[in-house]
């Protein structure tokens, strides 16, 4: 390390700091905004002069936000579970079985990954109105699980290809029943990939805005990103800036937690699915 030299280290240090600042500054700014009280909201400071929880108290007092939070969590979780379950089955087949039509499946998922969601908004809007699932959880779960399926299939099949499946046979030779071999050998090997995929799919559903504003009309199914866009101030003389900032911070927390705890896995999942195919 000594040979690397001080200037070299300094240069990397500066570069790293630049990258970290680039990534975190806008997040810090909106967080700072959320802790300012209305009198200092407009001072443009990076650090609030007066820290207050007022904005948070405000949004948690309204059903507009709490209901949206419940919707967001519920819809994203259910979509994730379904997409990962269907994706696991398909990815297992893609990674391990030989059957005609595999290429078609992969091509089709690729097409859907590229599909412009706006193209589905008008037909889905009409279909959902006609069959009565407009503005319901189901109405959002359906497009979410569909659009996250390609992501799930790619990421999972990349992970499954890396699993040493022979271990299962070895376990059977050692006297394990098929169920035991599956439960004690394959599940632990496959779990990290499934888990990583679930995180990526969850982030995807959590993030969506277009379907959320198009396929909902009331608090019944509106998720937080859509609800934020419709926030009005607590009184008509007040801009909703503080509330929006606070709500924004609340829905950023799960993302920050995922990133902090599962950084390595998320990177592996994103790149394995997209590059190695």
């Amino acid at each position: 390390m000594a040979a690397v030299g001080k200037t070299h280290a300094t240069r990397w240090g500066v570069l790293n700091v630049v990258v970290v600042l680039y990534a975190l500054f806008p997040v810090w700014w909106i967080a700072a905004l959320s802790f300012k009280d209305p009198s200092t909201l407009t001072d443009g400071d990076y650090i609030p002069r007066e820290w207050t929880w007022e904005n948070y108290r405000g949004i948690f007092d309204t059903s507009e936000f709490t209901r949206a939070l419940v919707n967001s969590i519920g819809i994203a979780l259910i979509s994730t579970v379904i997409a990962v379950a269907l994706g696991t089955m398909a990815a297992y087949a893609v990674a391990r079985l030989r059957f005609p039509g595999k290429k078609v499946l992969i091509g089709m998922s690729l097409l859907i990954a590229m599909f412009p969601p706006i193209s589905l908004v008008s037909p889905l809007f009409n279909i959902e109105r006609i069959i009565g699932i407009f503005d319901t959880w189901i109405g959002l779960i359906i497009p979410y699980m569909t659009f996250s399926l390609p992501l799930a299939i790619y990421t999972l099949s990349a992970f499954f290809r890396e699993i040493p499946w022979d271990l299962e046979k070895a376990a059977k030779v050692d006297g394990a029943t098929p169920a035991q071999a599956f439960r004690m050998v394959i599940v632990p090997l496959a779990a990290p990939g499934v888990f990583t995929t679930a995180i990526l799919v969850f982030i995807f559903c959590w993030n969506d805005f277009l379907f959320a504003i198009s396929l909902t009309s009331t608090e019944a199914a509106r998720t937080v990103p859509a609800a934020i866009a419709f926030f009005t101030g607590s009184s008509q003389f007040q801009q909703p800036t503080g509330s929006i900032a606070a709500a924004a911070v609340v829905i950023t927390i799960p993302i920050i937690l995922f990133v902090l705890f599962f950084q390595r896995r998320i990177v592996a999942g994103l790149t394995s699915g997209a590059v190695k195919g």
Partner: protein
Amino acid sequence: MSTQAEPAGAPPPAEAERTGRHRAPLSAGARQERRLGWLLCAPAVIVMLAVTAYPIGYAVYLSLQRYDLRFPAQAEFVGLSNYGAVLTSEFWWDAFWVTLFITVVSVAIELVLGMGLALVMHRTIFWRGTVRTSVLVPYGIVTVVAAFSWQYAWTPDLGYLAELLPSGDAPLTEMWSALWLIILAEVWKTTPFMALLLLAGLALVPEETLKAAMVDGATPWQRFTKVMVPLMKPAILVALLFRTLDAFRIFDNIYVLTGGAQNTGSVSILGYDNLFTALNLGIGSAISVLIFICVGIIAFTFVKLFGAAAPGAEVK
């Protein structure tokens, strides 16, 4: 489920015996494997078809109708006249060029920045974990949240960035400055994704090849352009393809930053407005179909012209 499915290459002893006896075109094991394969893929395929193929067909049907939600009784078949109306409208072309401009400029900037970011992540000698973790934040953050952060930053009398400008400037209310700010927000949010894809490509460049080039006296720039870039070409093309298609669909950032005012709306914004502000399902659907065709052309160009190996193409 794994009990019936064995790797295709190595049939278990019992099945090998059976395979030996039947010289039929397909052994029982292979047929079983085939059935299982279809069975496992069926739910995913059905969902994907039901939720995309059917609605896009329905969108084509709707786009041939005069269908205004305010006057549903007057719905009737009008042939291609919705397309004629859209394609001769300046709103469509304005939105189209704006979208194209945002797509090309932001993807170009992202490629350069993303490459830099990937090199930093790949080469940095310390803090590697911290850098990767913080870079994932823009990737994961809800686009609407990031867009609000930018919007407030550029709002006069509120934001830190607006303070840097001469007072009275409201960059989000003028077309060109607003477009650049939209691009900035887009670039900030998606460069990390680009960088991660490129990082995966960088990991495939063998260290020995770089060393050999160095021994041969190649400058760092030569090593980058002559050794790394050619080896990374597949990763670069996939990253470009994904980001181009994604950028063309831009919606959230514009919706929050300008709402599409001052001619800053993308085609997606136009489609949304026609549907939910004008309540015109016929025109809205025609726009949907046109966007779908645009995306198809972009994807086709990438795959055919540049030979972007779509992920999955390498699947054995």
